[in-house]
């Protein structure tokens, strides 16, 4: 299983701080597509992803137990 954390407004959209999902073997891009289909999230293309507190590209494959975090780059200043 994998813990998936959401930051900033993603968390507000989801209504939860995190989800538990089975993402083993999937790429980051695949997980994003799945989440977009199941939840009312804004487009995830430009949302940054971290696996175990390290930046992960869209083609990175998720391992069992990995903690995934989605961090939307914000634009306010």
């Amino acid at each position, binding site marked *: 299983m994998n813990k998936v954390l959401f*930051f*900033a*407004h993603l968390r507000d959209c989801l209504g939860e701080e995190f989800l538990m999902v089975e993402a083993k073997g999937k790429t980051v891009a695949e997980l994003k597509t799945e989440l977009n289909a199941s939840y009312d999230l*804004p*487009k995830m*293309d*430009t949302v*940054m992803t*971290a696996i175990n*507190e*390290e*930046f*992960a*590209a869209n083609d990175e494959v998720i391992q069992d137990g990995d903690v995934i*975090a989605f*961090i*939307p*780059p*914000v*634009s*306010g*200043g």
Partner: protein
Amino acid sequence: MNERYSRQVLFPGIGKVGQEKISRKSVLIIGAGALGSGNAEVLARAGVGKITIIDRDYVEASNLQRQQLYTEEDAAEKLPKAAAAEKRLKAINSEVKVDAIIGDATPILLEELAADVDLMIDATDNFETRMAMNDVSQKYNVPWIYGACVGSFGMSFSVIPGKTPCLNCLLRAIPLQGMTCDTGGIISPAVQMVIAHQTAEALKILAEDWDAVRTTFVSFDVWRNQYTGLKMSKAKFAGCLSCGSERTYPYLDHENMTKTTVLCGRDTVQIRPSVQGEISLERLAGQLSSLGYTVKGNPYLLSVEMSGERMVIFKDGRALIHGTKDLTHAKSLYQRILG
């Protein structure tokens, strides 16, 4: 030793040598809103040699809650932010040379300015300018410090050409509908936290303590008590068009910029975003209504009443701003809402 900087010279990370370096450096701050005014104040107090600050807006009442250089009088006089900032910065430290530019931070202007500065600080409110800054940084080999916040959430990352990944490595595209302070609100402690991170990095870079520069991408939420630093060692993208070997600096290309045109004889500006895609009109309508704006819409467009102007936003991000012929003002209104 100048008594004025004695407490900073006493700090071992800076010392006399570092202070001497800081006093000869030139910093470009892009934006004079919350992050811009805060960064400018810290760096002016620290004795940076020259500060160039650029902004296209004027001071409004709703800025005063978090934009630290400005007073009620500045808002009443609708002073341009860059001018109001310059006035206060000079009262704070007359030893610092301040160059205030009232205008739009276009890629052309950024290229001109970057050639003469040691560091750029991101205090803008939109990703288009950030991506241009990112390209300019790579082209002229000038570090820049990303900073942004919305609500109680903020983030910062130092981009050092040749060393770290760049913003285009991380995003690969401009986010189409980023949260802005005008849609998600903002509290001052989140601003202060970003400023603390940006100015710490700035002082390290200006004092040339390169080993101390943060290599993680930091993000935090001051209300939810979260703080994370992401390791970025795997984030550099070889095929990046901004910092890779086949670089084209796409965001300095006129084709990729937001287009603004005055519609002939109609007192209306049309805005075409640089990005292809679809925005969620429903989500935007919800945000704008909760902001207190009068919003009308149908599945194809949204119409928003703003003070004196009316903005019509289409699903593909195109917009018409009725009631103005001022291109810069129209773009500012647009980016405040769509990021």
